[in-house]
């Protein structure tokens, strides 16, 4: 389970995140939805420990990321926005590198890599150098790398960007499988449809603040039309009246 408590972060004069509280429960897919520049990436970066919050804290299975980074991050798989892989390593070597750094090794690691190669349909290019991989292939390798240590919690920053239709479908299938296996999945997006199609819980942020949260049903019940898109727009307008 991921819990963010009153996170806030400023860069110089810019208040990137004013206050974000959210919970991503086990066995549920939580979507962090917001327009570009709402503070989604900054929030997630504070969660996976590359930014230090000015206020508030991030808890992964109850472990404070700022205080016990190694223990907390060991229970998290993080896929940052536009994450790159190593072009001179093969797909398998890319995954193995992160596996070893996460403390795995030997036959356990090799078995896990084989498992991920099957799960993510990497087999065809598993032993090719990553140089020249397509965007979809790179994302699959990056996902396999994120999952290699079988983390209980998963955070993905705008993972769906730039994927073609088949790649999007297999990505969604994977997320659902992980949810069904009891993992907590938190992902950010600025694409309404993606969030609507996948999420059990939705947190809408705008201007560094949570402006609405709840299940898709709860959110749509707030607007007469019953559409999630209207609920999204209505939530944004509540903070920045047009």
């Amino acid at each position, binding site marked *: 389970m991921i819990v963010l408590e009153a996170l806030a972060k400023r860069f110089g004069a810019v208040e990137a995140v004013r206050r974000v509280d959210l919970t991503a429960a086990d066995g549920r897919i939580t979507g962090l939805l917001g327009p570009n520049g709402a503070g989604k990436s900054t929030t997630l*970066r504070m969660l*996976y*420990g*590359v*930014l*230090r919050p000015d206020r508030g804290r991030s808890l992964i299975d109850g472990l404070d990321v700022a205080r016990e*980074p*190694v*223990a*907390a*991050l*060991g229970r*998290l798989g*993080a*896929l*940052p926005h*536009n*994450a*790159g*892989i*190593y*072009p*001179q*390593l093969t797909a398998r*070597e890319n995954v193995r*590198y*992160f596996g*070893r*750094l*996460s*403390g795995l090794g030997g036959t356990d690691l090799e078995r896990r890599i084989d498992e991920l190669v099957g799960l993510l349909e990497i087999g065809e290019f598993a032993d090719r*150098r990553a140089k020249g991989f397509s965007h979809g292939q790179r994302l699959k390798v*990056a996902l396999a*790398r*994120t999952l290699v240590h079988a983390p209980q919690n998963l955070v993905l920053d705008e993972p769906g960007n730039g994927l073609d239709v088949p790649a999007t479908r297999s990505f969604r299938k994977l997320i659902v499988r992980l949810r069904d296996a009891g993992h907590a999945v938190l992902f950010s997006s600025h694409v309404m449809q993606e969030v609507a199609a996948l999420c059990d819980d939705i947190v809408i942020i705008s201007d560094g603040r949570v402006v609405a949260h709840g299940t898709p049903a709860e959110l749509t019940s707030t607007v007469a039309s019953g559409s999630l898109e209207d609920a999204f727009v209505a939530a944004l307008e509540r903070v920045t009246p047009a």
Partner: protein
Amino acid sequence: MRALGTVFLKEVVENARDRRTITSALLLGPLGAPLLFTVLMNVTLERERHGFEAPLELAIAGGSEAPNLVAFLKGEGVEVREFGGDANGAARAVRAHERRLVLVIPADYGARLRSGLPASVQLYSDASDTSAAGDRVRAESLIRGFANQIATWRLAARGLAPTLSRPLIVDQVDVSTPAGRAVTLLGMLSYFIVFATLIGGLYVAIDTTAGERERGSLEPLLTLPVARRELVLGKILATCAWMIVSLTLTVTAFAVSLRFLRLEALGMAANFGPHVALATIGVMLPFVLLGASLMTLVASFTRSYREAQSWLTALLLIPTVPIMFAALYQVPARLGLMWIPSLSQHLLISSLLKAESLVPASVLVSAASTLAFGALLAFIAARCYRREQILG
């Protein structure tokens, strides 16, 4: 420590597949440096030998005024050439590099000489033309020899002992060993070795820092449950490994290529056998850590691969500055200088080349100080990776 080893291995292997690293570590340093050095040395040696062996060519204006002088010079093996112009013509010819030297004998030369007055002759040369310096010295000493001969005859004709005019005689006693004479020429060698060592790790240092960030793989790496100092130290050690490869190959290439330089022809010997080669690598090892830490630290602060490239290329010059000074001013290998990295390595390598035995205290101070600087920079680099600005 496990993570450190993982990072180290991955960076060594990944860079082994990178063309830039391979070219710089295996080709540029180890082949380029000895090649450039050998060419430079051969040019120098040719010039020196030319100075000793080739007959001196001297153009003389107004030679008919001084038949005895011309005959004397010819007798000394000088190739005398008639020069048609006057003093102005001589100056022009030398300035235009048509002639290296022109000796002008004025019309009153014979008359002054006969009446016992000092006769003057003018030797035109261009002091900025270093290739003519040897010729000038030789011509001047020959003319002086002729003058001494006349003085001797004059004294003898008056019944005086010729030695009267020579109250003092300076004898030059050269105590340098053949290896010691070679070292002034070989002074550049340590410069090339330091350069090749740094080049070997240059692209690894960039790839593991600025390259990692530019590819977008730094952020995922930092989300792993690993202490960041282990990541940084693994990267620095991988850079060290490639530098050691380059260093070893370069020193080996030097040991081989120096056999093809004809230093013996000048009464010099190149003291660069297997033992000296090994000792040179040993002396350089502490410098490897310093160089790798410095390059990693600087490249970590740059915003892109290209920026890192220009910064590190400029950085290559820093360790060569003290070496340049030492070579220029012939700085002796004093213990008090051994704390300065790169200078101390240069001085120690020079001692090895001169076949002097190394002073243990000097080796110790050099290694300890260089390692301490290297460790300090590695520590600062590790601290930098704890800052969130490292993501750029």
